[in-house]
């Protein structure tokens, strides 16, 4: 029928109508959303290093790398989990469990086997989470809170909260060893961040992570094995617990059930402050690097600037909430004009 509105028509594309002011606002918002967090990090570093120039000394940076390696490595796994729209709140207990396994086995056998045992333990923890989240299909938040309680309880019951001290000095090489002053643990952290980032950005697997987190149903209909992809991130997070637990046990030459229950908050904060969305589908590893930098700088800077521990918490909390508020504002600017 000739009078139906299918006739060829002059260009009427939406983009033509966009005024340049709107474009500026929109892309300004996008740029801010992308790079705002880096600016915040740089300012923080400048402030702290003016307050105490020792902050940027090689020794201090090496120490920070070593100190933050366990949390940073777990943040790599957590980045994957969060990008798929999930959560892993079992990492604090899982991390203690793996450290205890490393120390307990390390008392008996060669350190290398001890660390392998810890990583295997982490793998099993991750597999358990994966089965519950994608196999049984329980909400990941609840699942991992639950498995966290179970793992923590098991560790207490088995060890009776006794500290496992490893007499073998070679056990400490992984965590405390250095090459020309550069700590092995820091190298391990950098390697995890680098490889984790490349896999996310460059591989088919990474592409699938973003797709699943961004739109699960669309991914399923496109033939992505959604449950396998999601499950794999929990296993990865478990392996990261194993590595992190090994590092800490090695650094301390011992481990105990109540190792560091609040490390979960550090790890979540590292990922989220960088700008990776808790809703899934948006984020990247460099954001986790920046998040780690910010959290480490705050903690270390407070010590160097001799600020009371109570003020630390207030300032830390404010920076976290502030960073997220800025992210939300940037998104609003970026999407409002796009709607």
């Amino acid at each position, binding site marked *: *029928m000739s*009078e*139906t*509105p*299918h*006739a*060829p*028509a*002059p*260009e*009427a*594309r*939406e*983009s*033509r*109508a*966009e*005024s340049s*002011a*709107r474009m500026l606002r*929109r892309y300004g918002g996008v740029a801010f959303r992308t790079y705002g967090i880096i600016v915040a990090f740089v300012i923080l570093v400048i402030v702290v290093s003016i307050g105490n120039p020792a902050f940027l000394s090689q020794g201090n940076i090496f120490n920070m790398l070593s100190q933050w390696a366990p949390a940073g490595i777990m943040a790599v796994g957590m980045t994957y989990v969060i990008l798929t729209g999930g959560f892993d709140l079992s990492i604090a207990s899982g991390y203690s469990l793996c450290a205890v396994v490393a120390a307990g086995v390390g008392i008996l056998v060669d350190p290398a086997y001890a660390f392998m045992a810890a990583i295997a333990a982490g793998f099993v923890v991750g597999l358990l989470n994966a089965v519950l989240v994608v196999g049984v299909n329980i909400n990941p938040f609840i699942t991992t809170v639950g498995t966290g309680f179970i793992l923590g309880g098991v560790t207490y019951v088995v060890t009776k909260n006794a500290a496992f001290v490893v007499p073998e000095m070679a056990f400490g090489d992984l965590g405390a060893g250095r090459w020309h002053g550069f700590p092995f643990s820091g190298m391990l952290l950098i390697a995890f961040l680098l490889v984790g980032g490349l896999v996310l950005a*460059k*591989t*088919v*697997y*990474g*592409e*699938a992570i*973003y*797709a699943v*987190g*961004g*739109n699960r*149903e*669309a*991914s*399923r*209909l*496109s*033939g*992505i*094995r959604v449950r396998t992809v999601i499950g794999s991130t929990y296993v990865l997070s478990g392996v990261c617990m194993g590595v992190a637990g090994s590092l800490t046990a090695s650094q301390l030459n011992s481990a105990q059930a109540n190792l560091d229950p609040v490390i979960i908050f550090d790890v979540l904060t590292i990922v989220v402050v960088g700008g990776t*969305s808790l809703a899934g*589908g*948006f984020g990247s590893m460099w954001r986790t690097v920046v998040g780690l930098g910010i959290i480490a700088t705050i903690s270390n800077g407070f010590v160097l600037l001799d600020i009371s521990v109570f003020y630390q918490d207030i300032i830390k909390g404010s920076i976290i909430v502030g960073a997220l508020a800025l992210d939300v504002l940037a998104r609003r600017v970026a*999407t*409002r004009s*796009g709607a």
Partner: protein
Amino acid sequence: MTSAAGPEAVRVEGVSKSFPGVRALKQVDFSLREGEVHGLVGENGAGKSTLIKVLTGAYTADSGRVEIFGEAVDQHGPRAQQRAGVAAIYQELTVVAEMSAASNVFLGRPMRRGPLVRRRAMERRFRELCDRLGVDIQPGARAGDLSVANQQMLEIMRALQADHRILIMDEPTASLGPNERERLYETVGRLKDERAAVIYISHDLDEVLSLCDRVSVMRDGELVSSAEVGAWDKEGLVSAMLGIELRAPPARLGAAAGEELLRVNGVSVPGKLEDISFVLRAGEIFGIAGLVGSGRTELLRALAGTQPGATGTLAMDGRTQALPRTVGRALALGIALAPEDRKGQGLVLSQNGFVNVTMTDMRGLAPGAIVRSGRRKAAAETIARSLAFDPRRLGAPTGTLSGGNQQKLVVAKWLHRRPRVLLMDEPTRGIDVGAKGEMFAVMRRLADEGMAIVMVSSELEEVVDLADRVLVLAKGRQAAILDHDELSLERVLTMTFGVDGEAAA
């Protein structure tokens, strides 16, 4: 075009599929040949979408047999079907908003070298697909920032990129403008020449009749009729779909000369709309015609208090004031908006009809802040009956209802609020012929009861048939307001394309 009877690509025999309480497919037989475009029409809820989901493997049939290229499909799931060469463009958009346009097109099948993604190669291939479809989309653009039409193009490109032998298109043109539709038709023709097999689902019967070689009609889960396109005309299709003789469209009652209700003055939205003014009378249906991107949605949103940056004034009952800044202010003035996106903005899909209908106004239903379910039920049922919506269906989660029924509930929830001006954005998008007729009757009745209705629709025929007066928008400017005796499809059509189009016509 002569229909080329190639070998069979798809054969479906006696397929049935039930969902709790519904038999969605009953003993369906269907076949699709290579080099054929096979139209599939039917009312919403007739089973078309279920049938294609069985073909793509998104659903597993309860009984019956599905063969693809002569091989029985016993392994199910979208992956198996993709390997067998089936690609589908779904009615609901399935883009991943946070990913780039190119990544969306290659979703699930990125071009790769070993485990690595070949982004450059994907962008090159993306640009080729863009050229083929005549669209201009940046491969790196965030998919969520694209217009609905461009997102739809991404879906189409996704199906094309893998060179599948069998393509299923479910309402591919629903959100496309005229240009993009033409390009799509050309592409379908080319696919056909390349001996691909295409299943084409659409509510636009003219489109189906001009594009397809064979047309099958579904009704209530059964495939009631299937014949070469030459055997069909529009009336035949409609009566086969409805199972009855074609109902006459509701006659227009002529411009109701009610009192002035709302005067809109100089509404502008930077970059979208410029200086729109009109007067709305009680008892009339006021149409807004324009292309996608002409600013019609922004105009409705400006009146409803949901368009940031809108400027201008309005006068309700003669009192001039600024445009409402919030939905609450608009509702206080008596202006309600039934949005285009039923699923995203219209309904809480996980909740039932009672909750959805009454959520616009709980005053009177919850004295002392405690919800009285009896009162809620009574209120919702009264409105449902007035819209010819079966009240027994109010208890079902609204996500399980057909598009036509969902649309009725969107209208119902705003009627519950008793607005004086009801703005309706695409009230008939994606709903079938029968439900459209009912929706038109409802709109006319509401107007007769003294409400003013403002309606936006991409189907210009609808606007011309139904509206008493029509405001034509072209590129954000007010091209004209046509009275009912000046209305004709050609006139509105030329005007929507702006001054150039009119000069050429």
